[in-house]
């Protein structure tokens, strides 16, 4: 798969078809997920606010997942010096930052009814904020170095270093006794299929949306590079 797509031409051909397809899938999944979300019964404890779960939890997952994608792409671009992997990493960053911001915002909105406060400085929430900062740092570093290849490599190193943060976020609920829901209370809730289906649909939908947006952004980035290359050639001639 990697070897196949590593060729830019093949990637372009593949993504031209795949991006809209995955995008349409994402639309269908999200639409049906939202429909189930609103038709699901109120929770006996949380009431209607439980619906926030279907927005928040997938966003939080995607925030972590997109960082994994960034780390993998960075690793490939660093080790194999592959331009496509670098473009993929670059394209991933704003998406990941958005998902992280979304998880933070929806979490805060959910926190108001659940905990009676928008924000607490507990370990998971804070480490999530640190993740957002890491995304911002990635973007800032990339844009502050002008040479594209160098910027790419420096940013890739940062991305790999920052990956240490992922297990900290994930296990923070276990390591520190905190306010945020852990997986156990979470399983109690989702044990009921009322909640499992919309959650699964939303999670898949988020993932598909991320996938198609990512492909589109990679394509745009590759086009941009080609354009600047042509401009340079023209200037040289």
């Amino acid at each position, binding site marked *: 798969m990697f070897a196949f797509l590593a060729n830019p031409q093949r990637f372009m051909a593949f993504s031209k078809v795949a991006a809209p397809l995955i995008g349409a899938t994402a639309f269908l999944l999200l639409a049906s997920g939202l429909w189930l979300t609103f038709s699901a019964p109120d929770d006996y404890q949380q009431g209607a606010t439980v619906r926030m779960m279907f927005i928040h939890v997938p966003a939080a997952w995607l925030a972590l997942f997109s960082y994994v994608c960034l780390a993998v792409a960075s690793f490939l671009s660093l080790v194999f010096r592959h331009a496509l992997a670098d473009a993929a990493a670059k394209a991933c960053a704003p998406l990941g930052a958005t998902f992280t911001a979304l998880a933070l915002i929806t979490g805060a909105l959910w926190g108001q009814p659940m905990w009676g406060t928008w924000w607490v400085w507990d370990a998971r929430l804070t480490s999530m904020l640190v993740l957002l900062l890491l995304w911002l740092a990635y973007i800032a570093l990339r844009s502050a170095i002008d*040479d594209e290849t160098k910027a790419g490599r420096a940013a890739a190193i940062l991305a790999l270093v920052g990956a240490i943060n992922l297990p900290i976020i994930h296990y923070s609920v276990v390591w520190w006794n905190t306010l945020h829901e852990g997986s156990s209370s979470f399983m109690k809730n989702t044990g009921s299929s009322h909640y499992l289906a919309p959650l699964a649909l939303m999670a898949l939908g988020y993932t598909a949306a991320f996938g198609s947006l990512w492909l589109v952004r990679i394509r745009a980035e590759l086009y941009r590079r080609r354009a600047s290359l042509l401009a340079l050639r023209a*200037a040289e001639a």
Partner: protein
Amino acid sequence: MITALAIHNLSIQRGDRTLFSQFSLEMKAGEAVALTGRNGSGKTSLLRAVAGLLRPAAGEVRFGEVEAEEARARGLHLVGHLDGLKTGRTVWEELLFQTRWTGGTDAAAAAALETLDIVRLKDLEVRRLSAGQRRRLALARLVAAPRPLWLLDEPMAPLDAEQRRRFGVLMEQHLAGGGMILAAVHDPLPLPARGAEVGA
């Protein structure tokens, strides 16, 4: 407009050392002087003193009829060992700023790119230039913002043969137009110039 430069009994001290003293030199419009001297004899210091960046221990510098302050603010260019270019900005950004700062027009800056043969490098960051290209960029403001007195510190060392020839022509045009050139050099200038030795 400066039409003469007179350095009178100048002496310069660095730390506890007197680099040179009683140095005198007169120049008129259309003249070039090649300052020579051993390493550390004080050529660079002399140029900086003329530009008013360095306070001499004794002696004075006169710019013909023109007030020294006025002459230094609008009448001379100093291109030194350090070129004052920001490595992160592009060639064009830097040239445009230097030109506007020293009173030239944008059109003149564009023309200077051509004259110094750096059009192709216009959008490159300064960091990426080779030594000779960078020097050419530093010299470009001489052309882009005409000022009568050029103070040059080893201007041609990093240039290749072709570029030295071209810059020689530029200097001759400047002199022909009534300009003056005071240049510190180790190799002779490619044009007829009086010599002046710094530090005995």
